[in-house]
């Protein structure tokens, strides 16, 4: 129980930052679009974690009804689902054209 109580908001934020960093690294370094998408999910979830952590902190000050952060996290999850759907749709169209899912082989987005 103690151990649980010692887990402060800071810990959550550190975990979230770690997740976020992993996500960023994944997005920037991986060539496979699927993995990039997954990394984006990681980033989003890092944000969710932050939101939830701040919501918990906020409850300790303003009472149990201060749930804004958690509601926001649910929105982000919904948004992530939509984003994944659109992303995968683009991915399939992309694959049909290029027969590849490597993001560095698609460099049309220039000039």
């Amino acid at each position: 129980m103690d151990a649980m109580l010692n887990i402060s908001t800071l810990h959550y934020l550190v975990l979230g930052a770690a997740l976020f960093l992993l996500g960023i690294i994944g997005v920037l370094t991986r060539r496979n679009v699927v993995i990039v998408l997954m990394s984006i999910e990681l980033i989003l979830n890092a944000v969710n974690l932050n939101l939830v952590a701040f919501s918990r902190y906020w409850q300790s000050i303003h009472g149990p009804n201060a749930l804004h952060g958690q509601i926001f996290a649910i929105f982000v999850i919904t948004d992530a689902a939509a984003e994944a759907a659109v992303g995968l749709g683009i991915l399939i169209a992309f694959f049909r054209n290029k027969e590849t899912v490597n993001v560095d082989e698609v460099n049309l987005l220039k000039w």
Partner: protein
Amino acid sequence: MVFLNNIWLIPLLPAIGAGIMFFFGRRLQKSTVNAVCVGVVVLAFLFACGAVLQYNTWADANNHQPFQKILYTWLGTDTGHMNYITKGGAQAAFQADAGFLLDPLSSIWLLFVTGVGMLIHIYSTGYMAHEGGYYRFFGYLNLFMFSMLTLILANNYVLMFVGWEGVGLCSYLLIGFYFHRKSASDAANKAFIVNRIGDAGFLLGMFFIAWYFGSLRYVDVNHLARSGQFQIGDPIITAATLLLFVGASGKSAQLPLYVWLPDAMEGPTPVSALIHAATMVTAGVYMVARSNALFVLAPTSMKVVAIVGALTAIFAASIGLVQNDIKRVLAYSTVSQLGYMFLALGVGAFAAGVFHVFTHAFFKALLFLGAGSVIHAMSGEQNMRNMGDLRGRIPTTYWTMFIATLAIAGIPPFAGFFSKDEILWQTWTSEGGAYRILWGIGYLTALMTAFYMFRLIYLTFFSKPRMSHEVEHHIHESPSSMTVPLIVLAVMSLFAGFLGWPHSLGGSDRFARYLDPVFARGEAKVLVEEGRAGQLAAGEKEEEHTSPVEYALMGLSVLAAIAGWMAASRFYREADKGYAEPIDAASPAVYNTLLNKYYVDEGYDYIFTGRKKLGGARLGVMGLGEASSWFDSHIIDGAVNAAGWITRVTATISSWWDKWIIDGIGVNGPPIVARMLSYPTRLFEWGLVQWYALVMTAGLVGFVFYYVYR
């Protein structure tokens, strides 16, 4: 006055006939065509007789003025829109009436045109009975009568010109009646084109008259011309009359425009008789006689007329000596006789010229109709070398033609004797001096005329039969529709001359007296006092008529006629197959020249038509055509091509300018600059999404650091 006041009906009647043939002719029976076309001409003849009789009584009461009937203003207006300034500076309206004028001159033409025309219409019903295009033929004939009567009865030069062109058209249509024959359509074209040359002269002469006198009515022009206000030898009147004479020499087949008339024999024989012997070809004589008031003011023109007439007379007669085609002999004879008429006009003996027109109409129409009857009997054969001994087989034709030959040869008392003798006498007495040469030419022509006419008679009706048995078997006298006109014309050939029985033979020369008002001896007296009496009035010479010289000349011309007859008799009386021509025997070169008509047609081909090349160069009309063609293809087209070339060069320059300067600098320049300027910036955009994300992240990190640690 009913005939006189409705004189416009005379030309209208044949016009109606022609109109009916034009619209309904194809569907009509031959008998209906006969009834209509011959009917209208008979009516016109009767009407003309009535009109002339009434005119004679009217003229006695009206100082022998011409009778004018003006229906309306046909050309021009009264509003002054077609006014012009005459040479004298006055305003004049360019106007022509649909007006008719009857005076002794037009009366004579009216009577013989309708009379001979009527006989020839009747004759044609027999001659053309088996031909195709029957209604067409009669429609053309009626149209011709309409045009000729318009020409005669017009009261001004313009309406006369309408008739003049109308007869030219009908002549063309009828010469080319057998249009499926190339020679006929060629001859028709030739007649039309040669006549156009004359017509151009007529038109110009007419314009001169309008410009100088301010009117085109005969009455006005004659009145002014006789008023004494113009000098004899006035250059403009001389020019006008010379141009009118060009017109006359086209229509009346004088040198050098006579070439169409012999070829016109391609038409059916009645046409040759009506148009190319009796009536149309005398239109030129009519026109000159009609303009006598002008011609007496232009002695130069009179000389030209006389000389051209005399030369034409002997020229055509000499060709006629050796021709073998029966119709061609008559054609050259016609040209020659027309020459006589102009000779008479040219020496101022207008009445004598008109008298010869009058008698010639009968005996020449008779000769042509007789020739037609011979051709009819000979199944279409026209070459006299293949005829002979026809007198017993077609006796009516023989007798009538024989009378006509006596008439044309000038054997008294036939018609030709009086008129021809009058012309020769007037030529002899006109001016004396060099004019005696013209008499000599006329006399020689008379000799030749007698020779070639009796040659025709002997080769056709006497001598040995030279036709094939086939043809000989078919020889038959023509039907009465053809022989009756022959007989009537023969009677006229015998008696028409009596109208001009001269003083010297105890007559009163009624014909010339009748014409006196036209040739205005009374009015001309004013001018006579100024000199040149011989040019002016034949009447002045009447008093000399009883001189012994006249009897001597008369005797000489009879002698010439007899001599020609005897010579022809000697050479051709016994002509058998392959007979020799005496001229050929004497001098083949002369004979060939005459047989080939002095090579005039060939000469014209070289010089005027350009059908043949003269020394590598083409002259004449076709030469002009070639030159124009060359001019067109080289100069005009060259200019066109040069213009095109210049356009192309400027277009090339313009295109280069557009492409390199406008497009290159103006249009493409700014984008090039923009492109060059944009080059560094676009290096940032290289298309790798992850790179963009990296930059974004770096930026984000940078901002965070900046805010946290500043």
